């Protein structure tokens, strides 16, 4: 069970990475418009 002492900090690192990725995506404007991409994917041909 002492593996927990390694796994929990590792899990923290992973979670930290995910949060960093999320913040990066928000700053890139990925969440600014959540409606139009759904339409765009229907009509995109040469995009």
């Amino acid at each position, binding site marked *: *069970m002492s593996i*927990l*002492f390694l796994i*929990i900090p590792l*899990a*923290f690192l992973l*979670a930290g990475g*995910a*949060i960093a990725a*999320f*913040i990066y995506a*928000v*700053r890139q*404007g990925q*969440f*600014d*418009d959540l*409606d*139009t991409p759904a*339409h*765009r994917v*229907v*009509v*995109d*041909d040469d*995009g």
Partner: protein
Amino acid sequence: MSADTRTSTPSPQCADVACSHCGLAVPTGLVEHGASEQFCCAGCRTAYAVIHSCGLDRYYALREKLEDREDRAPAQSTRARYAEFDDPAFAELYCRPAEPGAAPGHGLWSCELFLQCVHCAACVWLVERLPRVCDGVVESRLDLRRGMVRVVWDAERVNLSRIARALDSLGYPPHPARDANDRDLRRREDRRQLVRVGVAGACAGNVMLLGLALYAGLFDVMESAYAALFRWASMGISVVSLAWPGSVFFRSAWAALRTRTMHLDVPIALALGAGGVWGVVNTLRGAGEIYFDSLSVLVFLLLVGRFIQHRQQRRSADSVEMLFSLTPTSALLVDEDPDGGPGYTREVSIQSLCAGQMVEVRAGASVPVDGVVVAGLSQVDQSLLTGESRAVTVETGDRVAAGTVNLASTIRVRVEATGAQTRIGRLMALVQDSLGRRAPIVRLADRIAGWFLAGMLGLAALTLGLWLALDPANPSLAVDHAVALLVVTCPCALGLATPLALTVSIGRAARRGILIKGGGVLQALASPGTMVLDKTGTLTVGRMRVVRTRLDRETRAAVCAIELHSTHPIARAIVEAFASADADEAADVAHTLGGGMEGTVRGRRLVIGSPTFIASRIGGLSDSDARAVADLTSAALTPVLVAEDGRIIGSIGLGDPLRQDSSGAVADLRSRGWNPVLLSGDHETVVAAAATDLGLPRASARGGATPEDKVGAVRDLSSSGATVVMVGDGVNDAAALAAATVGIAVHGGAEASLAAADVYLARPGLSPVLELCEGARRTMRTIRICLAASLCYNVAAASLCVAGLISPLIAAVVMPASSLTVLALCVRSGAFRSGRSS
């Protein structure tokens, strides 16, 4: 929303031929026999030509698949030149470099524009193919919900006005969206909020997992080393959650304490702070209870509630701003010819005009500046500014004000004042002033917060004292129980209830054409007070209509045929009232401005016009005719006489009649305890007549009110602290809308009133006002039920805590349970549901 901006579809129609662009029926007169393409209007013809020549015909196939047939509308090209879009001042405000090193006229630039009439996925496709329509455009991205496009272009190859003309020719007239700085600020704020919610969610989820392990350890044996690891790990995550996303609560509580006001964030911050600090102490000393899982879930849920509310309000505000941006921003400047010739006109932005210059105002356009008429004779509609529905004749030497609409023919105006110096500019300053002075609506939750805080602190002190007395040897146990009480009674459900209930209502209201800018509005409207109603445009249609007629059927058709030749509001009202299928043709039609018209129909020579004009044409009115005119005038109607062969054969009375539903709505308001008051800039007689029709006592109707009078009246009414709701449409109402507790701008209102109001009604008439009041009442009822439920929960939880019976596990189950109850209650609320509200 886009329904407002569409003009009426052409009539009469032929159902067999569909327009090649918009798919609507083509009017019989425009059908070209033998042509493979048919168009219902010039706008559609242009749009089709552009789309076809750029090889974008796929648009029509997409549209066939994706568009709702109800949404079909002809292309709304305005054919404006958009010259003002190239103005350096415009670029300063709305455009931004899209790459480092871009300078004016060089490099890549970007701009966000509101587009009218975008409505389906095919529009997205077409707008995003803009680089193929307009050379030099690098990228074009459309946000369909907001109707906003971001274009990036190469400044060396194309300028913004050409891009704007290209969009216009496709049938999407563009409008500058908003000050670019302001927009960047808002976007940053939106993103910050999203990051906070995301981080709080991640923290809450992880702490809950660790908490689960700890709770499992309660029933089984867990080695103390692992328990300590889990406690330290929860502490680490929770400190992040409290210090980063949770810091908003501490900051807001601190701000409230500093200004000595009460805010719901104060008890929330107290719970978070006490729980957090004591949790850290207990983790460090390795004994006692920790509530980290409950605290991080609390932060997450509260932030989610606030995020949803913020988004909904932003959505309503965006819709209103879309309307706001439709204001014309250009004027026709006359370059004077030194030799006294007519000179040339060119389009410039209104901001660049200065006193002494001359502008041309065409019929149907609004006057861009305050000034003096130097050439031309016309009539202007000042209703936006004064609330008076009758048009005023202006000739050389008369003053015209910005914001008024030129009705009859082209005039030239010498500029005296522009922008903030105009009468309308000063009114807008008054609006800003009133908005700044307005006392904020105290939210119910904040009012409760003070009592809540006192209760929490009192009970915590009681618990502490009780347990110190019971077990003096163990002071940390007493602190444990006191902190548990603070955490468990934290007004989480209370904090969620208000934003959620308001958000659900604002969202549903928006779908019913009622755009609410802020949550406080619903609370203010829930209990009745004084409702000040503007007359023109609010209770009435805001347009001239034929109210009384004394003419035989044949003459009506003849009058209609003559009046067809004019665009004057009176003529249009007459045509609307008298139009019949077998229209006659009028010949030799002559206009006399400010007087009337004459023409020959089927051999009859008719003269139609004002009593003075007719009197001058036939040499005086007989006594009975003068009496008829006096009758009409005393009924607050504008008289129009019809003469043939030197004698009067009939009369028409025009007025701006009350809407059909107005009296019913006013009666309904009174039965609900509101006190309706009529306040109008129109003539006393007209206002008094309207009050009688509405069944209002003479004392609660006032006419001849200037915009300044209206503000004064609203301030007087609200000085006693009572709720004053102002309902109006014009610029003349704007300052009063801002001064009232709640300002409601009605359908078709002026931009200024939209800026000042808290609510915009996208449907005409007073019935949305009734719906709004009813919805507000139901919303507040939902909130009260939620508050009662969460208070019951808090009382129960607090008694457990005082008795020392609570544990982190019970808290972790009970706290979210109370929040979920509130959530369910809000979603089930009947506010603004179709069929349930009147």
